[in-house]
């Protein structure tokens, strides 16, 4: 036990240093624990600044004592390696531990101990903590917006059936697997659209469009049975013909209330809101922005100068302006260019605006994937006699898209996080509902609870999305 060097702890006096160091560290943490949980200031007799810094100093000395290399005790070595490998890291570790201990009591008391959840009015909130009653009372509004209470089963039913239809892919047998892409890209969006069109709206939301949509759906379905030779001509003329005939002969003006199902009340899009609207907007924007972005990405790499420069200008324009001005444009400027009797719902305009905006970002991501593919892939596909479309659909795009899954997931996440912005044009999804609830004279002063609630909801959605994209990336990873 002779010549103990306190400045340089070593292995020969291991036990002494260990006991000394651990007890000092324990004292410092215990002091912080006491002062934060029980409000006892054990070092109160000292001057304020010293008593404030004392745990840090004591803990630092303690950590210095136990910093012994190759001590032979596995756990001690691990601690030293991970928390305590030099003075700087020791101080930072201590600070982080102290901050965690210090922040537990206020957070706990605000969210749980002093919080209220019972009751139905503001009077129930007596504690100092959060007033979850506010969230409880307003929950329906936060989820469904101003949608009438007795009609909300329509939203529930639509979303549940859409979820069920969306999960078909997991149960598909080998035989139907090859149709899945077609299903998810074409049929499923149409079903979703019909649900929202007929069921959630229950009224003439999009009716200026409905002929066009019905015409294109009918034409595409028939189009699958048309021989390849005539397909181009078919798709050039038939949808237009169907549209015109529907418009002029079969369904005249009186039938304009096409969107009405018997017995369902019409709920205007102005009344939609809350989380449901967030989902609707994100869903359609995701669906629309992907094909548009893909077309733009191919267009940017096209050899025809007109297509190439149009795509470049389009992409750079949308990427250069903020979404908020795009939304302003869609709501203030765009209607001026429409013919006078042409009606386009605000929600539809917003969805189109966001889709075009995000499509530009998707295009750049996909272009990255296209550029990353070696030339050999193109040459090989061409040498097999594939044309432009065949080459891209069967060889290039599957590989390129696989490469850019993380980028696309990021863009989609950005899209979901951008949806609250639609409140600037008066569509009240969840952030908008919060702003509305906040100004309700009966419930003044609970904005914090509202934001925490919305933040948790969005965090869960976005975090789940990012983890899912990570899984997808792992699943489609191919060795190169």
């Amino acid at each position, binding site marked *: 036990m002779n010549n103990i060097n306190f400045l340089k702890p070593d292995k020969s006096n291991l036990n002494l240093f260990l006991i000394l160091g651990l007890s000092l560290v324990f004292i410092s943490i215990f002091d912080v624990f006491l002062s934060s949980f029980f409000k006892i200031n054990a070092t109160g007799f000292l001057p304020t600044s010293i008593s404030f810094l004392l745990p840090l100093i004591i803990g630092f000395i303690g950590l210095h004592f136990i910093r012994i290399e190759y001590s032979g005790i596995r756990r001690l070595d691990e601690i030293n390696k991970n928390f305590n490998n030099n003075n700087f890291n020791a101080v930072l570790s201590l600070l982080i531990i102290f901050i965690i201990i210090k922040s537990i009591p206020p957070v706990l008391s605000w969210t749980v101990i002093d919080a209220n959840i019972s009751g139905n009015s503001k009077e129930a909130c007596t504690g100092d903590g959060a007033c979850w009653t506010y969230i409880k009372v307003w929950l329906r509004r936060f989820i469904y917006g101003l949608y009438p209470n007795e009609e909300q089963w329509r939203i529930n039913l639509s979303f549940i059936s859409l979820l069920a239809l969306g999960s078909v892919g997991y149960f598909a047998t080998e035989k139907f697997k090859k149709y899945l892409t077609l299903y998810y890209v074409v049929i499923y969006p149409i079903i979703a659209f019909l649900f929202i069109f007929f069921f959630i709206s229950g009224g003439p939301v999009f009716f200026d469009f409905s002929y066009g949509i019905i015409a294109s759906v009918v034409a595409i379905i028939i189009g699958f049975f048309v021989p390849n030779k005539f397909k181009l001509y078919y798709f050039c003329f038939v949808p237009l013909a169907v549209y015109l005939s529907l418009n002029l002969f079969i369904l005249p003006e009186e039938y304009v209330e096409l969107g009405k199902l018997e017995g369902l009340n019409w709920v205007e899009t102005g009344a939609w809101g809350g989380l449901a609207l967030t989902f609707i907007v994100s869903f359609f924007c995701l669906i629309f922005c992907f094909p548009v972005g893909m077309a733009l990405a191919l267009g940017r790499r096209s050899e025809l100068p007109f297509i190439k420069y149009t795509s470049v200008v389009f992409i750079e324009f949308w990427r*250069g302006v903020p979404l908020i*001005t795009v939304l302003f444009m869609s709501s203030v400027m765009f209607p001026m260019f429409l013919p006078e009797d042409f009606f386009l719902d605000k929600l539809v305009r917003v969805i189109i605006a966001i889709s075009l905006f995000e499509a530009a970002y998707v295009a750049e991501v996909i272009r990255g994937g296209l550029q990353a593919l070696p030339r050999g892939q193109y040459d090989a596909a061409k040498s097999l006699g594939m044309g432009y479309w065949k080459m891209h659909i069967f060889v290039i795009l599957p590989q390129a898209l696989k490469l850019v899954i993380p980028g696309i997931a990021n863009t989609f996440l950005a899209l*979901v996080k951008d*949806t609250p912005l639609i409140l600037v044009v008066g569509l009240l999804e969840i*952030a908008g509902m919060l702003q509305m609830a906040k100004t309700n004279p009966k419930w003044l002063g609970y904005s914090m609870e509202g934001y925490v609630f919305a933040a948790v909801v969005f965090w869960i959605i976005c975090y789940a999305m990012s983890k899912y994209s990570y899984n997808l990336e792992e699943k489609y990873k191919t060795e190169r």
Partner: protein
Amino acid sequence: MENRGIDFGYGFLSQESSFDVQFSLIEYDGSHSYFRAYLVGLLNTILVSVIGIILATIIGVIVGIARLSSNYLIKNTAAFYVEFFRNIPLLLQIFFWYFAALRALPLPQDTESIMGVFYLTIKGLFIPAFIWENFNIFLYSIIAAVVSIVVIKNYAKRKRENEGKQIPVFLISIGLLFILPLLSFLIGGVSLSFEIPVLKKLAKTSYIYEGGVGIPPELIALTLALSLYTATFIAECVRAGIQGVGKGQKEAAASIGLNPNQILKLVVMPQALRIIIPPTTNQYLNLTKNSSLAAAIAYPDLVLVFAGTALMQTGKAIEIVSITMLTYLSLSLSISVLMNWYNKKIAIKEK
């Protein structure tokens, strides 16, 4: 458009605007023109973007390096920060800071000062104002310092390449940056005094601080939210950049006897910057564009002043929205040109 009775033209820009703006960097009131209002909005947008970019870069670099720390606690705290702030919409974060966090601050009359001169109140942060005498001489001294630093740096580089001698450029630069402005104080007749904000009674229960500089809570909330949000993305770029430098590079650098600081400065960072700069440029662009969310909390930026108030007053939707979009487009383009120039400068020069 004719049959809607809309006349198209930019003549309104020179008309009197007759609305007031809360916070302005240049002199402005209702008697000025719409063009002046546009300038006010533009300057406010640039102000918030520049502060946001600087703060976000500092936080982002620190967090990005912290994510690669060998300390388990630091690594996970940084990861927690990134995952937490990245997955919450920016608009909600701005609302949170503005409507919840900053509203919890005390009223001006109840505020205790920080170090006797700063007052953080519900009406904003009040800091002392600088009152300069002969400010231009001070400015010249700083310019002279910067110019001489550049000259010395070039000289040191030539010296190193020709004769292999190292000159402590960093120490000399810091010395110059201190000494030249100090000389301007001592000989140049520059003097600096502070105007400390004082509490003033406006009405029976309404107080405000006068004198000094008042930073409005909108600006604080916006910069906080923007920089904390964007810093998460920059942190990821920095992490990816440092991880992208091969392990062999570090080992090779260590084997020729460089110390850890030199390895980071001379070997890792120059290579990592090439990976970091392009995505970080994107983040700067995003921050500038996201600063338009200011309109949601009534910070008088370009969107609120021009595309909001001015549009409501004049009804010139097409002109105003197009001007706003073009302005943002040119802001974005100028940032990307600047960063591309920097990127080209640090790129590998292949011969």
